C-alpha cells in the first residue's frame, strides 16, 4: 500500500511542483542538511523534472521529521510508535534518557545524548557503542563497534540493553502520577471517613464504584473483594496510559500500552492470578473433562492450550488496538506530506481530531475490556462444583 502511495505521489509530484512554488513564498526554507547525499540517492530512472520538484519538496518539508529525499511514510510512522532512547520535546530539542547496557564486561551507564541521534560513536569504558537502526526494524539497537566504526556482531550479541527508554520513563511517570492520585484520595477517606467524597475523590469514586459493581461483582461473586486491588490497578494503569499515549507532546506521546512487552506482562499477571486461584473443579475441567475416555488425548491438550490463549488474546488485543489507533492518527497526518500540500491539512487535521476523540473512547473501552475479561477468567477459575456435574 505504501508502495502504491509512493508511486502515486511520484507521478503527481510534477503537478504539485506548481503548488510548491506558491507554498515556497509562505514557507521559510530550511537548508536540507544532506543535500549532496540526497542527490546521490535519487533513483536514476526518475526524470529530471521529477528530480527538480523533489528537491524543492525536500527543501519545503525538510524541517519536518525526515531529511530524506523521499518521504517514507511507514518509516516515519514506525519511528513514532516505537520505543526510543530520547524523548522528543519540540523542534530539535529532546530529553536524552540514560542508557544502561550490560555486556560480558559488566554494566555501563551514560547519556543517550552521546550518540547524537545515531551519528556519533560513544567510547565507553569497556566497548565503543553506536545506535543502529535497520531499515526494516522498528527498534533502535545498541551495538558494539570497533575503532573503525564497524559493527562487531559477536560482541554485540552479549549486549543487554536495560536503558531507561521513552516507554520506561513514561511508565515511571504514570506510576508516580497514579500513586499520588490514589494515595491522596485514600488519605482523604481515612481522614474524613466514609461519606461524600471531595476533590479528586469525587471524580474517581464513581469510576472505582463502576469497576466494583459492573466488573468485579458480576464475574467474581462474593469473593470480589479479594481481586479488587488487582482489577483497579490494571484498569487505571491501562486507562491512564492509553490516554497519556494520545497526548502528542511531552509528557505523553510514548506508546506504552501499544508495546507488546508491556501488555504481555499485564496478561501474565492475569494468567498467574487465574491459575493460582484455580479450584479443584477448574482443574478438573482441564485434566478430567466430561467426555468419553478415548477423547482425552484430544481434549486435554486443547484445554491446556486454552489456558494460555486467553491471556494471549488479552495481550494482542490491547497491543493491536492501541497501536492501530496511533498508526491511524499518524497516517492521517502523513497524508499532508504524502501529497506535499498544506491544502490536505484542511481535511486531515479535523479528521485527526475526530479520530482522537474516538480513541479517547477506545482507551476507556480497552481498559474496561481488559479488566472485565481478567475478572471473567478469574471468575471461571473460582468455579464451585455444581451438582449437575457430579455424576460422571
Amino acid at each position, binding site marked *: *500500500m505504501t*508502495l502504491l502511495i509512493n508511486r502515486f505521489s511520484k507521478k503527481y509530484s510534477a503537478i504539485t511542483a506548481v503548488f510548491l512554488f506558491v507554498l515556497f513564498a509562505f514557507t521559510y526554507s530550511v537548508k536540507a542538511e544532506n543535500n549532496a547525499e540526497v542527490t546521490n540517492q535519487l533513483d536514476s530512472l526518475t526524470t529530471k523534472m521529477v528530480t527538480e520538484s523533489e528537491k524543492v519538496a525536500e527543501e519545503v518539508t525538510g524541517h519536518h521529521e525526515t531529511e530524506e529525499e523521499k518521504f517514507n511514510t511507514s518509516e516515519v510512522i514506525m519511528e513514532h510508535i516505537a520505543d526510543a532512547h530520547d524523548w522528543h520535546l519540540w523542534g530539535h530539542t529532546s530529553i536524552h534518557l540514560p542508557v544502561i547496557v550490560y555486556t560480558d564486561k559488566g554494566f555501563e551507564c551514560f547519556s543517550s545524548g552521546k550518540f547524537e541521534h545515531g551519528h556519533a560513536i560513544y567510547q565507553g569504558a569497556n566497548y565503543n557503542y553506536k545506535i543502529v537502526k535497520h531499515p526494516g526494524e522498528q527498534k533502535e539497537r545498541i551495538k558494539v563497534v570497533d575503532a573503525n566504526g564497524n559493527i562487531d556482531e559477536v560482541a554485540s550479541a552479549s549486549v543487554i540493553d536495560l536503558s531507561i527508554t521513552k516507554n520506561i520513563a513514561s511508565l515511571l511517570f504514570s506510576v508516580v502520577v497514579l500513586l499520588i492520585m490514589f494515595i491522596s484520595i485514600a488519605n482523604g477517606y481515612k481522614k474524613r471517613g466514609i461519606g461524600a467524597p471531595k476533590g479528586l475523590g469525587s471524580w474517581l469514586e464513581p469510576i472505582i464504584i463502576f469497576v466494583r459493581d459492573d466488573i468485579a461483582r458480576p464475574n467474581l461473586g462474593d469473593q470480589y473483594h479479594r481481586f479488587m486491588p488487582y482489577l483497579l490497578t490494571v484498569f487505571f494503569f491501562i486507562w491512564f496510559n492509553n490516554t497519556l499515549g494520545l497526548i502528542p507532546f511531552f509528557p505523553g506521546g510514548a506508546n506504552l500500552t501499544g508495546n507488546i512487552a508491556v501488555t504481555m506482562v499485564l496478561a501474565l499477571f492475569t494468567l498467574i492470578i487465574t491459575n493460582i486461584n484455580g479450584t479443584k473443579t477448574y482443574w478438573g475441567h482441564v485434566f478430567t473433562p466430561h467426555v468419553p475416555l478415548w477423547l482425552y488425548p484430544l481434549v486435554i491438550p486443547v484445554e491446556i492450550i486454552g489456558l494460555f490463549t486467553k491471556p494471549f488474546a488479552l495481550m494482542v488485543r490491547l497491543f493491536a488496538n492501541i497501536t492501530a489507533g496511533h498508526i491511524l492518527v499518524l497516517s492521517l497526518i502523513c497524508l499532508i506530506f504524502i501529497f506535499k500540500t498544506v491544502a490536505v491539512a484542511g481535511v486531515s487535521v479535523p479528521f485527526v481530531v475526530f479520530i482522537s476523540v474516538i480513541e479517547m473512547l477506545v482507551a476507556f473501552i480497552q481498559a474496561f475490556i481488559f479488566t472485565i475479561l481478567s475478572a471473567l477468567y478469574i471468575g471461571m477459575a473460582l468455579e464451585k462444583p455444581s451438582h449437575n456435574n457430579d455424576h460422571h
Partner: protein
Amino acid sequence: MTGSIAAIGAGLAAIGAGLGIGRIGGSAMEGMARQPEAANKIQTAMLIAAALVEAVSLFAVVVALLGNG
C-alpha cells in the same frame, strides 16, 4: 509483493470482524429496543462479545503486519 498480500490479508480480517461486530451490535440494539430496562446488561455482554470477535481479527492483522516485514 509480500506487502500487498499482507494488505489483502488485513482487509479480509477486517471483513470478518466487520460482519461479526455488525451482527453483535445490531442484535444488541434490537435487544435494547425490546427491553430498555436490560440495556446495561446487554451493553456489557455486547462489549465482551465484540472484544472476542475483534481479538480473532487482530490476530490476523498482527500476522499480516509480521508477514509484511
